[in-house]
């Protein structure tokens, strides 16, 4: 199964992943090989099989809506790469 260079670039864009030309070339080859192996699942007829997203018998677990202590502003900002005052600082969103 061959993945095109354009497909690799498109998927990298969807994932917001900056790739070098060399990485794109290597991933094109590796993804083609791996997805080629995955194609073995096509042989299995699953038309009447329901999907399983998770395996435990729990659905929509609810809890009481009770206020609890939360992390402080200082804690939350402690690992921020850039901050200004009590805020995260980000590059310009709109040019």
């Amino acid at each position, binding site marked *: 199964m061959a*993945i095109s260079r354009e*497909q*690799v670039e*498109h*998927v*990298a864009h*969807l*994932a*917001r*992943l*900056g*790739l*070098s030309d060399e*990485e794109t070339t290597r*991933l094109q080859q*590796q*993804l083609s*090989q*791996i*997805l080629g*192996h*995955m194609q*073995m*699942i*096509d042989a*299995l007829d*699953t038309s009447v*099989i*329901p*999907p*399983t*997203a*998770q*395996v*435990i018998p*729990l659905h929509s*677990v609810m*809890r009481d809506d009770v206020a609890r202590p939360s*992390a402080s502003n200082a*804690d*939350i900002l*402690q*690992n*921020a*790469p*850039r901050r200004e005052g009590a805020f*995260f600082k*980000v*590059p*310009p*969103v709109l*040019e």
Partner: protein
Amino acid sequence: MALTDLTALQALAELRAGRVSSEELTRAYLDRIDALDQGLIQAYVTVTPELALEQARAADARRRAGEDAPLLGLPMALKDLVLTRGVRTTCGSKMLENFVPIEDATITSKLFDAGAVLLGKTNMDEFAMGSSTENSAFFPTRNPWGDLSRVPGGSSGGSAAAVAAKLAPFSIGSDTGGSIRQPASLCGVVGLKPTYGRVSRYGLIAFASSLDQLGPLTADVADCALITEVISGHDPRDSTSLDVPVPRYLDALTGDLRGVRLGVPKEYFVDGMEPGVAASIQAAIEKLRGLGAEIGEVSLPHSDYGLAAYYIIAPAECSANLARYDGVKYGYSAPDAETMWDGYYKTRGRGFGPEVKRRIMLGTYALSSGYYDAYYLKAQKIRTLIKQDFDRAFEQFDALLAPTSPTVAFGIGSKVDDPLAMYLNDVCTIPVNLAGLPGLSVPCGLSDGLPVGLQVIGKPLGESMVLRVAHAYEQASGGPLTRPELAASA
């Protein structure tokens, strides 16, 4: 006998009898880490000597005051994806190289509440993606067995090597597709992936949320039972955590297997399995038969599809989970980002290593428009079939026996250029995660001087049976595998 030769239960007996203090025990481990870790085994990304000694002294003070707790004064190592407040938690990634959590994971709190002492954080494949620990952004970890040229397995390779090299009496790992069991097998220690939901995932850095589960790596099965009991239980902070009582797992270790029905799935004896591994597994099965267990063959017909389904589902979940690394709230952030979008590309392009990028790409592809039904939905349907295979097998059997890994530890560097070959390592462990079952690897001898692991797979919440079978085997085979001797090199 050195203090670091003791199992966790033996060390606790010494502590309780007052024959050794936690400070002495902790220092013995810190000294051994000093001598053997850096430049040799390289199991630890971060060692925490000050914290360890502070916790050890506190444990000694509590014991002097007449207190006890299940692990009071016992040292441990945590895989570096378990959050530890104030202690750097890297997940084996440049992305989190300087990340210092502001709170403990639930498992960390439970272990600290039980009195355990943190020696440090162990090396791993970046974001737990890998089977050799070579995908760590920092350095590879060496398998303590043989000539130190082999991988410890992965992704919990640091946790397995730490126990095998007696650099910790026990450790915690995580297992998404075999990442506790496979390194336990390759390093000759015991490793348990509990039932999905048995152990809280709160504060475990997420890889694939429907598959991830935390569990112990230990020197023997009794230690494994002890630690599993401490870390299990319901957690309101994890909505997938099961609200069911935790058994006393040590009580399950009866040594008696009479009438226990053990199935051997024929599909797990795969092409490419090393003859020495197959021979060790067969010998272990015969030993269990000799103990009175009823052994029978069973078929899990969709096993062949498990690997493909896993390498669609796990990357799909990873691509969603790792979307959070945007360079804004924590972690690496490209300093030269010109716009928000430019920042995302640069931060993620530089912060993630090759395997993580590969998985994000695979997962994003499988979830993308036009491919969702053919890949992701189809993989979820295969997951149903795999679960049904196990359900049918457990109508006949109390537990299943299989190899953990088709090979013994392979050479560092021997598979790094072939991602698909690396993925095939996980063929015997992956279906267990897809079905959410407990799976344990117990050493069952050596092949070419390297450990082989027997995998015992249980019903949902069947940890007691899995531990009972593994323990009976361990006792009948002359006790736990002796860990290798290591000499400090200059």
